[in-house]
């Protein structure tokens, strides 16, 4: 059933040209509207793939956009609005997953890989003998070499 629903909503989403926020949803207060847009762009449209509710035209995304705006008008903080939506739909709704036991690898990996790479390069660099073993060419040798190779070297 969930599958059918998902397919149905996908079809519905496809059947309307991509035009997410509709004029009748826009809040009068521009500051509040801007906050609504910022919050919406971090919330996933649950029936779409990898689209925020701000970008999506699925009916469910519209409902969520309206919900976000209602909470904002009621005076909720940005944080409270997001928490409210997460409470209903779980972490799945967040396009930026929260840091917890399940996502520690996700968040940690980029920086661990960078550190590991840097460490590896640094240790190799220390293990290798310095370039002193290869004597630099004299200017004369250089000129002869360039003449032989017939090639400009930067």
């Amino acid at each position, binding site marked *: 059933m969930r599958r059918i629903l998902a397919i149905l909503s996908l079809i519905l989403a*496809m*059947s*309307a*040209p*991509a*035009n*997410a*926020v*509709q*004029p*009748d949803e*826009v809040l009068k207060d521009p500051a509040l509207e801007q906050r609504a847009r910022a919050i919406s*762009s*971090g919330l*996933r449209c649950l029936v*779409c*793939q*990898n*689209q*925020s509710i701000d*970008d999506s035209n699925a009916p469910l995304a519209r409902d969520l956009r309206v919900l976000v705006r209602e909470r904002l008008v009621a005076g909720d903080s940005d944080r409270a609005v997001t928490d409210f939506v997460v409470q209903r739909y*779980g*972490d*799945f*709704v*967040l*396009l*930026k*997953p929260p840091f917890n036991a*399940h*996502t520690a*690898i*996700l*968040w940690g*990996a*980029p920086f661990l*890989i*960078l550190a590991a*790479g*840097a460490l590896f*390069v640094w240790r190799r*660099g220390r293990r*290798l*003998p*310095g*370039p002193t*073993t*290869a004597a*630099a*060419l004299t200017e004369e*040798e*250089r000129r002869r*070499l360039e003449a032989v*190779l017939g*090639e*400009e*070297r*930067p």
Partner: protein
Amino acid sequence: MIVEIGHYALALALGVSIIQALVPLWGLSRHDRALASVGASAALVSFALVALSFAALVASYARSDFSVANVYANSHSAQPLIYKLTSVWGNHEGSLLLWVLILTLFGALVALSRNSLPPRLRAGALATQGLVATAFLAFTLLTSNPFQRLSPAPAEGQDLNPILQDLGLAIHPPLLYIGYVGFSMTYAFAVAALIDGRIDAMWARAVRPWTLLAWIFLTLGIAMGSYWAYYELGWGGWWFWDPVENASFMPWLAGTALLHSIVVMEKRDALKVWTILLAILTFSLSLLGTFIVRSGVLTSVHSFASDPARGLFILLILMAFVGGSLALFAWRAPLLRQGGLFAPVSRESALVVNNVFLATACATVFIGTLYPLALEMVTGDKISVGAPFFDATFVPIMVPLLLILPIGQSLAWKRGDLLGAAQRNAAAFGLALLAALALIAFTRGGPVLAPLAVGLGLFLVLGAGFDLGERIAARASGWPAMFSRAKGLPRSAWGTAFAHAGVGLSIIGIAASAWSSEAIGTLKPGEKLTAGRYTIVLESVSLRNGPNFRADVARFQLFADGRELAPLEASKRVYTARAMPTTEAGIRTQWLSQAYVSLGEAQGDGLAVRLYDKPMILLIWIGSLVMAFGGALSLTDRRFRLAAPRRAAAMAAPAPAE
């Protein structure tokens, strides 16, 4: 009949590819030159057969032969001819055939480049190519046969997905595939080197043009796809960190790293093991990209072809080629001897740092793309990883890399002078910083990070220009001397400068999106909407008929800063065969900036309209073009055109001195 010939040619090509894969390997192991050289002829025959097969499919599309299931499902007799032809690869089966066509084309090119490669390397590379071709030809024939007939033949086709009936998307897949498949050459050479157990600067010189070529096309393909998304999807976004986009971005990042590490190998005979590994990984990521797009494992905004049974087949291909080559790598890589040395401060070391950052960036995209899938399989938990995650991880990794890029670029080979390089870039850095500060002051109250990003982009552009200028002016005095020196500079030096400046231009374009503005409104004729510098007034809405669609066309008067420009049209189309709508945004380009109008639903007696002011947005894609142009310049470097025997003799000397 033509269709059957095409099908038969494809089956023959599979047989020839098996010969291309196995006989040279047998020859290599028996040190039999005649057997080892069979690969070249097989590669040529295989290409001819696949080309024939592809031509047959193109002909069926051109003639709208709906007795072919593939044509029936993806074409319509009312389509303009150009879209009939591009429909060939607008679907799973046809795009696979295109993939194989490009693959065998590359094989044929290697076979034709007779003298420039050591014979053992060429035989091994062609055999590996043959293996890849065998796998994909088998995949096409067994699961995705484009020549399936329908009986009775339907009178009319189902039309191509309307969203694909667009010139941008018509040339996007071929560009992308030339990129993906081009990296198969690098992979084939890497595997051949591992089989041979020997690798030297000659290898790097042989592989670099292929890598460059693949990289150029991948760059163009990604840029094209991004521009298409921008104007066709109708909400003005140009990059969504969508799995399908990431699938093409990962090989690009790895390929960029490879391009730089190959340079070190060519110059210094160092980084051999890493370069081989990168070559394998880059093509593996290309395969992964094909898998992600073709299997629908991560269905996404623009995944139009998905079928789990096929997914399993591609997964097997993926595992065989990635696993096989990595096993070969683990077994043979210790045989590769490390070569030349370089000081911790040198261009080589800078390129190593470049590789560390690019590899990390690539790994980040990889993890971000596949983590939700892995987590769901392991724990059943569902999470989403979207744009905000990549903004928070990818960007901090790239910024330091880009900051040190101009300095690395101006370091000398082998042993550099960090202070000197920093001094040489001081002027560029100072100017860029000044520009950023001026921008902050000028746009007070606006975004702060964006001006700094503009400064970073400017730093790259200026750094590239100053570096070139330095080299031209270095030992020359007077204009004629400088001119001849500019002409004498290797093309690859020009290429480097252009490619790096291109990155800078793209960054400026991306940063400028912080100043874009948007307005949404319901308009009746005569009403206006303003966003940023632009104002539009709805003039009229009319109905128009296209060849295979109906369109609601809205006509707007357009004002920029109060000055009237030529009117602008935006439309919504409904393609009759599939009853599917698309938006055609109205875009007006002014210098590098654009006004962008897209239509929504009718609301009461008004029309929902979005207007965007997108300052400097074109720089994003112009930057990509400049990058690709830089790559093309490097490709024409005379080192790649020189006759091989002389090269081979020159390279026989240990570590070329400078």
